[in-house]
Every structure is written in C-alpha cells, then in structure tokens.
C-alpha cells in the first residue's frame, strides 16, 4: 500500500506536464475561441483543415467568459480568431481592444456592409432572426403587425418569451430603443410584461412548446430553434413545432429584428494569415449553405441557396440598424427590463 503515493505522484507530474505543453507547433495552425458550441462548428472546421491543411485548435465556451479570457491573457493570448453568436459581444470585443481590423477583399465582397464592422474589425457570418411565432389554430396572422403592437390589450395573458437574462432579448430591446427611443421602449417592455402568459422560464424551445400546448398563443423566439424542432427525431417535438407558424413583424417599418454570428481576428494573433483564411472560408458559399442546412440560420451572403425549411418560412425584411448600436445600448436595455419587471 505504501507504494501508492509514488504512483500517484508520477501520475500527477505527468498530468501537470501534459497541461503545460502548448498545442504542437506544426507548420500551420490556427487557434479558435468559439462561443458557438462544438457540435455546430466542428464539422466546418474539419472541412477547412481538409481543404487547406491548416489545423484548427478549438476552445468553446460562453462568449463573455471567452472575452474575459482573451482580455486577461493580453498580448500573449494564443487565440487567433474569436467567434461569437451575437453582434453585442463582437462590439464589446472591439471596445476592449482585443480584436484587430483586417483587410480582406474576399470578405468585403461576400458580406454586406450592414453585417460587418465599418472598420473591418469583425465580420458577420450568419443571420439569426427573432420573429413572432403564433399558434396556427388560435391566432389569425392578420391580427399581428409589429413587436410594438404586442402590447395591445387583446394579447393579455397570451404571450410567452424567455428571461431577460438572455442576450437575444437584450438585443431585441436594444433595437426597440434604437428605433423608438428609451422612453417608448420602457413603455413597451411594461406593456409586454403585462401581457405575459406566465413568468419567463426556460429557453426559446420552451416558449415554442408552450404555444404548442396551449399555455400561450404567441412566442418570440429565434427561428433556428423552430427549425431544429421540425427536424427532430422526437415525434412529440416535431408535431409541437408544426402547430406554429412564423410571422415576420415590422415589415412595413424597420424590419424584423436580426442578430449576427460573426468572427474577428484577435489583436494577439500569431497566425494572422491562417486566421484570415479561416474567416474567409466561413464566408464561402459552401460554408454559408451549411449554416442554413444544419442550424437553420440565414446566410449573410446573398445568392446562397436556402434550405427548404428556410424557403418555407418565406422571405422577410430585416432590421438594418447598425449592430454596433445594439451593443452600445445593451446596458440600457437590461435596465429597462429590470424596471419593467421582466424577470
């Protein structure tokens, strides 16, 4: 028995040594901090490696935590590329000075100006729309019009939406501030809370399921959740999703709220060239199609084929507000939701 400690010690040393070893120094590689979860990015990265021979090292995590890590590691951070699933965090990364501008004719040609940073610091890669979803059997789409109109009395006790902790809701309210002003946005938030069918809980899928089961008639949720449910192997989930239809609000005005997932080259990047190539790869037609087919997100690049599901939902006009602005208004949005009692 008394030999055990030695064995453990060796294991311990070995494990520690393994921890110290940095990613192997092969000829070309690129290090990625990704807020997009592994399952939704790995296949694309593998394809990139296959095509270019550049190895991709990956850490996934929550965007805020990755940003904090990037910030504290400073100029020695091993990360070359930061990938997030909302523009707010890209804006924050720029404000913190942890990303850098790149000059890429390929990206400029592929990505419309409204979905990238004016100075070239970050680049949108896919669009995530947050429209209204309604119960086909209980709501006539003619009754619907805009986000603003959801505060009407006829919707009392009929609306489901997730917690205001969620960045998608924060961005949505930020877009209301940008369009209608802070006072009107607060008024709106209060009205919306008054129309809640239940206190917010769960994620976007839960809101969709709540509509399907009759707890509420309307939900605000990102479309790709509905897409995943429609394609689910679980029959109950699939039939729940089929009870809902999408309504694109504010088509006569500014358009439906969208956010982007995007990427940026970090300031500390040592593999800058590979980093640019990776982002360029993510903007190619095949990668853009992949987003639509696998995660039901909208490609930023025009002319890229949509998946049948996206085609079914129809085309829509997207809010063209500069996404930088939403990042700047995020704090104010959270405060407004706190004051409105939006849990």
């Amino acid at each position, binding site marked *: 028995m008394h030999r055990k400690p030695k064995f*453990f010690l060796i*294991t*311990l040393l070995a*494990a*520690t040594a*393994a*921890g*110290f070893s*940095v*990613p192997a120094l092969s000829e070309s590689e690129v*290090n990625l901090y990704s807020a997009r*979860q*592994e*399952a939704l990015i790995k296949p694309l990265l593998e394809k990139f490696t296959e095509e270019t021979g550049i190895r991709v*090292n*990956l*850490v*996934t*995590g*929550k965007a*805020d*935590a*990755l940003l*904090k*890590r990037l910030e*504290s*590691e*400073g*100029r*020695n*951070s*091993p990360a070359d590329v930061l990938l997030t699933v909302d523009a707010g965090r890209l804006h*924050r990364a720029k404000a913190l000075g942890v990303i850098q501008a790149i000059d890429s004719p390929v990206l400029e040609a592929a990505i419309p100006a409204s979905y990238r940073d004016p100075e070239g610091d970050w680049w949108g890669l896919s669009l995530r729309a947050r429209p209204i979803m309604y119960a086909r059997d209980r709501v006539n789409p003619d009754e619907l019009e805009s986000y603003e109109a959801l505060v009407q009395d006829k919707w009392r006790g009929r609306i489901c939406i997730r*917690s205001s*902790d969620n960045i998608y809701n*924060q961005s949505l309210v930020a877009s209301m501030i940008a369009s209608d002003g802070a006072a009107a946005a607060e008024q709106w938030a209060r009205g919306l809370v008054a129309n809640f069918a239940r206190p*917010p*809980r*769960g*994620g*976007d*899928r*839960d809101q969709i*399921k*709540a509509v399907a*089961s*009759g*707890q509420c008639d309307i939900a605000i949720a990102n479309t790709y*959740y509905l897409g*995943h449910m429609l394609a689910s*192997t*679980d029959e109950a989930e699939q039939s*729940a999703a089929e009870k809902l239809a999408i309504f694109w609000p504010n088509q006569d005005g500014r358009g439906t709220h969208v956010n982007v997932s995007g990427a940026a080259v970090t300031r500390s990047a040592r593999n800058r060239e590979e980093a640019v190539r990776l982002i360029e790869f993510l903007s190619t037609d095949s990668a853009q199609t992949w987003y639509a087919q696998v995660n039901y997100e909208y490609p930023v690049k025009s002319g890229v084929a949509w998946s049948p599901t996206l085609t079914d939902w129809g085309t829509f006009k997207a809010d063209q507000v500069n996404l930088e602005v939403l990042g700047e208004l*995020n*704090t104010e949005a*959270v*405060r407004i939701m*706190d*004051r409105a009692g939006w*849990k």
Partner: protein
Amino acid sequence: MTSPSTGISTATAGPRSRWRLPDAWTAGVVITAALLALPVLTVFSFVFYPAGEVWTHLVETVLADYVRNSLALMVGVGVGTLLMGVTCAWLTSVCDFPGRRLFEWALLLPMAIPAYIIAFTYTGMLGFEGPVQSQIREWTGWGYGDYWFPEIRSLGGAIAMLSLVLYPYVYLLARAAFLDQSVAPLEVGRTLGAGRWRSFFTIALPLARPAVIAGVSLALMETLADYGTVQYFGVSTFTTGIFRTWFGLGDGAAAAQLSAVLMSFVLVLILIELWSRRRARFHQTGTGSQRSSRVVLVGVHRWSAFLACFLPLMLGFLLPAGQLAVWAVAAAPGMVDSGFLALALNSVTLAGVAALIVLVLALFMAYGKRVRGAFMTSAAVRIAGMGYAVPGTVIAVGVMLPFARIDNAVDSWMRDGFGISTGLLLSGTVFALLFAYSVRFLAVALNSVESGLARIRPNMDHAARSLGLSPGAVLRRVHVPLMSRTLLTAGLLVFVDVLKELPATLILRPFNFNTLAVRAYELASDERLADSSPAALSIVLAGIVPVILVSRAVTGPRRSRAPAA
C-alpha cells in the same frame, strides 16, 4: 472580513494558542490558505472600484428579489437535506427493515447527478408539455388553466431539485457519525428510562451534530453557488444577479460587490457553525465497535422506514436516471462517437488527479489546525474553504486574472532580459484547471477530514508525541491509518464533484480539451436534452462507482467485524 494577519488569539483556551512567531506548520497552513484564497481575493479586490449608480438601480429594482430568493432557497434546501439526510442515516444505521442493505449505499446515488441535469429531466417529465400533464389533460379533457399542477420551474421546484441531489452530503456524514457512535451513551440513556425517540433527539443527534452541520453547510454552500438550476427555472438569486450585473449591465465592480454580499452569507453560515460548537468537544471514547444489535422494526414502522428511504432514492436517482437512460437509448447512435471515449477519459483523469491534490491539501490544513489550534490557522483554514460557495465562473475568473498577470510579467521580463518570449505558462493549462478545482472543492474534503480528525481523541496525539514522533510523523503513522476510510470518502466526494463541475472547466480548459460535463452542457443549454443524455448519463455512471466505494468505506467497520454478512 478578518484578515488572517490581524488575528491575535485571545478567545481560545490553553497555553498552545498564545501568540508567538509562526512555526513551520502555521506558516505552511497560512501560505497555502493564502494561495487558495487568491482567486476569491482577486474578485474581492474589485469591491473597491466605484460601481457608479448601478447600485441605486439594483436596489430599486431587483436586489430585494435576489435576497429573498437566495434566503428562501437556503432555508428550503437546509430543511430538505436535513430531514432526508438525517432520517435515512438514522434508519440505515440503527434499524433493520426491508431493503436496508441496499439503501445503505443506494441512498448516496443522487450525488452522482449534476443539479442542472436533474432540473432538465424533471422539467421534461413534469412540465406542462411533459408526459404526466399531457396524460392528465388527455384523460380529463382539461386545458391550460383548468387544473392546478405544481409548477416545477419555480422557487419550490429549485428547492426540491437541489435538496434531492444534495441530501447525500448530510446522509453520508451523519451516517458515518451514527456508525462511529459508541453504544455506551445510548445505553446509559436507555437505562435512565429514555425511549428510543428521546434517546435519538437527546443523545445520538447532539453527538452527531458536527457531522450533520458539516453536511448541511456543504449542501448550502453548493446551493449558493448553483447557477444552472436557478437560471433554468427563472429564479433570480445572487448567482444569476452576479452574471446579469457583470455581463448584462457591464459592471464588474458591482458584480464583485454582489459576490461579496454572497460571501457574507457564507461567513454567517460559518459563524453559526462555530457558535453551535462553541467549546464542546465531540471525541469518542470508544472505538464504536461494541454496538448492540440493530432495532428490528415491525409492522407499520417497517414499511414507513422503507418508504422514508425509498422516496429520496426514487426521486433523486431512479426517476431522473431512468429518464436519462430512455433518452440516451434513442439518442446514443448519433451522439456517441469515437471522441466520446476521450471525453470520458479526460473527465475521469481530471477528477482523479484533482481529488488527490485536494485531499493532500485538506489533510495538511486540517492537521495543521489541529496541532496549531491558534486563531490564525483556524481562520486561514476557514477562508481557504470559502471557495465552495462561490459560483464556479467567479472562481475561474479569479484564477484567470492573476495567472495571466504572472504569465505576462514573466514573459515581459524574459523578453527584456533575454529576448525570449515565454508566452503563457500557466493560463489555459490543465494546471490552472486543477488549481481552480482545489479552490472550489477544498471545503468538501476539508469538512470530512476535519470531522474525521475530530473523532480521534487528542490523547492519541499526546501519546504518539510523547513517544518522540514529530507532528508530521504522527499524521503519517497514526492519523492517516486511523482515518483511511474518511480520507477515501473525502477524496471520492471531490472526485464526483469535479466530474460534475462545469463553469470553471468551460472557461479555463486548454485547446481541444473537452469533458463529459462540457459536452452534456453544450447540448442541454441548446435545449437538446435528449442529445445531451448520453454524456449526462456517463457522468452519472462514472460517479456511481466512487459513490458505492464511499458507502463501503463508511460501512466498513461493521462489515469487517461480521465477515459472514
């Protein structure tokens, strides 16, 4: 907060505790504690930054909710774990009823299930859209609002979920204490005419109090640190508030100040515990081996006892694990790929190494406190254990900041002096991860080790010392062998906790390094519960073996004396 350096012992009795220059043990304990307190102190240092008028905003809007919910959660989970833990521990320790053998170890199983996973599974089962309520609606033709059904995603639901996975801490420690109790005091009580109930409440329970309180305080600290469950259930507590303030409102200082308030909850807990013990001593005089035979329950008592033990097991383990298994069978073909084994291996190795490190640290600190019972060492040990009540993300940031600073300072120095860039030596390594685990889970091991040490009479130390052994040798040759089961228990508890740990792992891990918890979380957070179930179930399975070992370790003494059993 009292800083260890200002602590001058006046309260504790005895000549040993008088102020003097720190010796090797004191210095060692204090330095280790300071290192382990570094992350918490780093976060605390933000307290002194001006937080602007965010506080006015918080006080006017959400702060009352945070306080109310956090307190309610603590009271609820405290009562829940106490009732389930102590009842089951007492029944399985001194009574005999159907299934008792099985319950002895099986009651620990809920410990293997991460709290946020049990929350997901119960929502899947009992939510409005779940099979139970759908069935009710189908039978009755009712719709939404026509009938009342307890809402699982609520404060009450969060209390239930956390109580179900945390009661094993109380059960484990209380049971160890009941089993170790020498039968003498109980029999004295009986001869003095105390009934079975009275002797439980007046003798057995008070004697087991340090262990029970240690168990409940572990459960409560874990409750305070919980983020996944309360966030999913939409219950605003301090933990969710910290994240909202930090990231949503973009105010790190105010978030740190909220963390400081959270820590003061913990300080109060610790003070209550210290006060409850005051100067009482709980050393056993016997070896606990001469217990008389079990009380064989008959009639209705038999089956009430069975039910009392079966319900926590069923609700805390059988139902959720069963649901996971059903989902996993459906999802496994798509989700269990070649990388899955690597995930499991990472998880188990990481948990094993972390458990060993934490165990050594805990033993060192607990023993240091025993041989140098001065205020300074006691305070240092307490502060080092506080990491358990701090949300993993906060600890992780507290690890990340100083490590990166050290790395960058070394790098600058090497660049200036030698023209070599050393890059990041500590940040983003397994070492950083292991350090974070040590900070976070020291309290788990510390509580077990301390209550184990407390049960060894000090005359053992005196005898060994008088035979010329150094304190270190006494630890090695007397205490460690005497407490081998306690140590095993402590190590395995940490093992299971690291296996379940998520937030720190997520932020601090190196490139291309994933664990089961990370995989389960990524899918579950995307509300792909079924897809996450193979990973979640693997965490549970990997945790079951150590949990059974823990149980055997606790039951050990009795078994070894009755080999026929």
